[in-house]
């Protein structure tokens, strides 16, 4: 179960789009998952053949749980006795999380643990139990055939761990099971995911709304508690950008027109190239630069709540491509169906609350990202230039950035770069 955003604790399988024996390629949509925020199409991160499906339709499982096993090229077919999925009963209630959860060997989603002599032999069922019960496989002694670790071994180890908890006090933000496929750390929770097993395939709108509120609350509280934000703001003269945009849109049919947000997104993405420490994640006590520039766009939902899915590789796309992506994204957000990669891999977020008329927005960083750029309303203001005062469309750009990953000086250069890029809209 991928962590589809920092605020997600568990997801419910609504539908499997593949069955054992199906060949899948990296990027294929293999399952549909319901989270508090939306219905998400889960993309696979491996190419291979589906060996077996571990979590059935209708089941709700915490993030990090193995959903299915995929045999990649060159891997031996497991003996059928080992891969037979048992009919899964109601998921066991998660025991109280031990104060310092033992680190679990990171199990990539949908990857068969290669069965080689120098690796642990673990049955798929045991793998799943280890994730569920948060047991470190390297500490478990296998009692199955050839010393393989079977489910009973995991359960024994879990009981032992609960019986003898370490003496250190609970740390409220100790990371839970590491996200299997995304750099996002799982949302911390003092109480652990609540696994109430009413197996509704979809969540009623009112429930979803309450759940979304809770998810936003958890992520934002986590952000404010953990991230030392610093805030910067700069007024940007938007006259060149708006004049260029009007002239451009005059040439275009209504279906081809651009919104000014597209210019802002592109300018942010190009500025990130210059100041890369705004782009990426703070995980495990260090900054990990983003491999690409995926800009999360905060989109508010009409019924309340918001979601910030990513447009991928914004720096490499034309304004037209970004506009097509943005329209599509807004449409799917409103319809409530998104893809896992969009939800999980934004490397920086942009929020444009100016639409609602506010002059400035000072955002809260969406963990584990390290920066959020906000744009206020574009309004005509007196603007001094060359000793003269004139009226120009002006917007306030703001930056909320993680002081662990960057300093104000770099943040200032970043905002200055956005300003400079917006003065040459034809080059965006």
């Amino acid at each position, binding site marked *: 179960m991928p962590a589809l955003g920092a605020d997600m604790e568990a997801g419910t399988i609504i539908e499997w789009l593949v069955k054992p024996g199906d060949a899948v390629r990296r990027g294929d949509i293999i399952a549909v998952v319901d989270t508090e925020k939306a219905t998400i199409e889960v993309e696979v991160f491996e190419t291979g053949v589906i060996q077996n499906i571990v979590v059935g339709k209708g089941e709700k499982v915490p993030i990090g749980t193995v959903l299915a096993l995929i045999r990649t090229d060159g891997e031996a077919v497991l003996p059928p006795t080992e891969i037979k999925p048992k009919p899964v009963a109601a998921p066991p209630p998660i025991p109280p999380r031990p104060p310092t959860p033992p680190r679990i060997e990171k199990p990539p989603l949908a990857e068969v643990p290669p069965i080689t002599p120098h690796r642990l032999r673990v049955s798929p069922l045991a793998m799943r139990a280890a994730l569920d019960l948060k047991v470190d496989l390297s500490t478990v002694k296998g009692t199955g055939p050839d010393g393989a670790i079977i489910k009973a071994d995991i359960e024994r180890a879990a009981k032992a761990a609960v019986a003898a908890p370490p003496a250190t006090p609970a740390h409220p933000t100790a990371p839970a099971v590491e996200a299997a496929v995304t750099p996002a750390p799982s949302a911390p929770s003092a109480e652990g995911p609540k696994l109430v097993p009413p197996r509704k395939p979809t969540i009623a709108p009112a429930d979803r709304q309450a759940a979304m509120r809770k998810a936003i609350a958890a992520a934002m509280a986590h952000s404010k508690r953990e991230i030392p934000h610093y805030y910067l703001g700069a007024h940007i003269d938007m006259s060149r950008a708006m004049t260029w945009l009007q002239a451009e849109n*005059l040439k275009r*049919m209504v*279906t081809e*027109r651009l*919104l000014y947000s597209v210019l802002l997104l592109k300018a942010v993405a190009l500025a990130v190239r210059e100041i890369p420490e705004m782009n990426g994640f703070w995980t495990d006590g260090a900054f990990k630069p983003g491999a690409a520039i995926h800009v999360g766009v905060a989109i508010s939902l*009409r019924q309340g709540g918001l979601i910030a899915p990513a447009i991928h590789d914004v720096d490499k796309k034309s304004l037209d491509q970004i506009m097509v992506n943005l*329209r599509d994204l*807004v449409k799917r957000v409103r319809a409530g169906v998104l893809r896992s990669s969009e939800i999980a891999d934004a490397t920086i977020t942009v929020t444009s609350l100016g639409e609602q008329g506010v002059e400035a927005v000072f955002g809260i960083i969406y963990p584990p990202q390290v920066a959020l750029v906000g744009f206020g309303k574009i309004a005509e203001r007196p603007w001094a230039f060359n000793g003269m005062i004139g009226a120009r469309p002006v917007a306030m750009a703001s930056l909320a950035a993680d002081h662990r990953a960057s300093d104000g000086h770099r943040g200032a250069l970043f905002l200055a770069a956005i300003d400079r890029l917006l003065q040459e809209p034809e080059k965006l």
Partner: protein
Amino acid sequence: MTDEQIKTLVLDELGKIAPEIALDQIDPAVDLRDQIDLDSMDFLNLMIAIHEATGVDIPEADYPKMASLDGCVVYLRSRIKEA
């Protein structure tokens, strides 16, 4: 296209964009954006939908004339006549 048809077209489209609003409560004389919290993407989608239904391409400069439901009717009536 009659005024009534234009009105229905615009309201139908607003219903798709903002399914939670009561369409019969909309004051036809008041700015739509003030009544139903439309952002620029919503408004663009409304213009595109009208374009697709009527063939009228509304230039950005004329957007202010489309601000209210009454405005839409008056503007589209004249543009459709031209066509």
